[in-house]
């Protein structure tokens, strides 16, 4: 028995909804209200569990052969780049409260640009640096000066 992408996704969602469904039955009920806090989540979760189970069944019923053909025709995708981008964004979010908005943002915009398209000429490097510094400076200036939004200060840098 083989299972496709949809089947696995369905199983995961089914498991999540069942776990939460059990939890929703354990929620306390309130004295004055006819239906407790678990009433509505239980409806949503039952629906989700049923739909996920159907998705698993649908996937099992569908022959594997069909989807294998589809996979070949799918256009090539650059998943490495997506992973790199997610890692860089994750690092930015983690460093933001430590380095402060200004330092972290200059680094983030520069690094992500370089990761997405490696600059080759001096002019491209200059554009990269200008975009990094410019984005940070303009957004900092507008938000802090005009819109009274305080952006994160760095715990390490104090800047």
């Amino acid at each position, binding site marked *: 028995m083989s299972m496709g*992408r949809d089947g696995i996704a369905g199983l995961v969602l089914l498991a999540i909804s069942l776990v939460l469904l059990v939890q929703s039955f354990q929620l306390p009920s309130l004295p004055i*209200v006819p239906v407790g806090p678990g009433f509505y989540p239980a409806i949503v979760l039952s629906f989700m569990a049923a*739909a996920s189970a159907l*998705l698993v069944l649908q996937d099992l019923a569908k022959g594997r052969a069909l989807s294998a053909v589809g996979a070949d025709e799918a256009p090539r995708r650059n*998943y490495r780049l*997506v992973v790199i981008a997610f890692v860089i964004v*994750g690092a930015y979010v983690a460093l933001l409260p430590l380095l402060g908005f200004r330092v972290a943002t200059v680094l983030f915009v520069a690094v*992500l640009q370089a990761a*997405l398209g490696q600059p080759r000429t001096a002019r491209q490097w200059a554009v990269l640096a200008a975009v990094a510094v410019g984005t940070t400076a303009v957004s900092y200036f507008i938000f802090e000066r*005009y819109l009274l939004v305080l952006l994160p200060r760095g715990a390490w840098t104090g800047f």
Partner: protein
Amino acid sequence: MLDLLWHGLVNIAQWKYMLPLFAGTFIGVIGGSLPGVTITMTVIVVLPFTYGLDPLAGLAAMTGVYVGGSTGGLIACCLLGIPGSPASIATTFDGFPMSRNGEPGRAIWLGVWASVWGGLLGALFLVFLTGPLAAIALEFGPWEYFSLFVLAMAMVAGLTESSLLKGLISTAIGLLITVVGHDPIGSVPRFTFGSEFIGGGFPFLPVLIGIFAFAQIMTDLEKLNLTRGQTMESLVGVKLERFSHLKVNLEIFKQPFLLAWATIVGLIIGILPAIGGSASSVMAYDQAKKFSKTPQLFGKGHPEGIIASEASNNANVSGSLMTIMAFGIPGDAVTAVMLGAMTIHGIQSGPLFISQNPDLAYGIYAAYILAHPCMLLICVVLMPLMLRVTSVRMAVLAPVVLVLCVVGAYALNNTMQSVYVLLLFGVIGYVLVKLGFPLAPLILGLILGDQIEINLVRAIMTDPDPLLFLTRPISGVLLLAAVASVGLAIWQHLRHQYRVVEEEPDF
């Protein structure tokens, strides 16, 4: 009513509103014209700038983005043959061929003028129909609201082409996200696992930004560096030929029926919740082709195709604004962001919105109307710049958009908490897209979740008889329509079972 509208127009004409409106329209046109940057993303980028403004100024800016974005998309359509934003997808069908035939100026300006006229025609409906719609909505009890929301979700899930089941699951995930945190009646924490982090539930805007902006940028990055250098035909940097604005306008008004019909199609699609610009543009194009005397010319640079697509996607904006103002339900992701912004300012949306906040309501009408001349002015003055802007690289754009997303989440309440939520839902959204789950139903579930629960519980508290949902006439009809729309979707899927299509996610 007309004096209220006049008052609204005079009000918006002040500098403190005109400036945000103009700036919003400008950013909208630019954002719309950049392929890979959708109108939703543009409005998300503008969002943090509106936190500090007064509510009407912020809403005027967002309305401007919406109108500008719906038009801006056509430039990339005509020059690159790819839509600058999903809302102008059908403009490529005839806009690009016409440009290739040596008439890029005619193609672009037909689109711009059709947008202006379609949008302004839509404004008539917006101004005169929203009030009566809200009056109907006022008659609704919790039963009717509940059923209306169920119908909205059933329709959106049914519209997803790939799989009805996935659409329904996606809706459920959206609803589930709103359940996390304290329950609305007794404040009992639900599914928080004792964590402080999600104790208060997931804030709406960071989730929305994560799912729409983040997930979409990541999907775009997959294609980066792969398509470049291939045989992509581009007319960027082309000089527009000499043409006359008068002639272009005559060409549009030669077929008043086409313009009116495209406007109405766009308007209706706009009113329906959570299906947006791309559907209206494609549907109006399709209708134009059906009614045309010369259907064989479509796809070869036929002006009718451009007019239909562009008039309808701007009219779509007025339809979406109608839904949000009359019912408090966002017609699409852009109005969902607007709704989020209203909530920040403590404005209650719903059928009482117009009567309780007439200044704001007529201000939005006025902003919508005035956004069109602003957009036209921007196009006239800045066309040479915009012909180049479409070639800005994704490598430069993506980091800037991501920074503004992070600021938008952070500035919501000045905590990193919202930024973590943003990142979490960025990952979730991307994974769901990759697994083939449509995002539109999820967002609708997310938007309506709280309201559905509140109305459901309220209905049961008023009268515990569950049959009332079926026996109250309006509620019963709405639920019946919901069942019918799911049934119709199942029937269509069975008919097209063997047609395998890889669907682009609709952001």
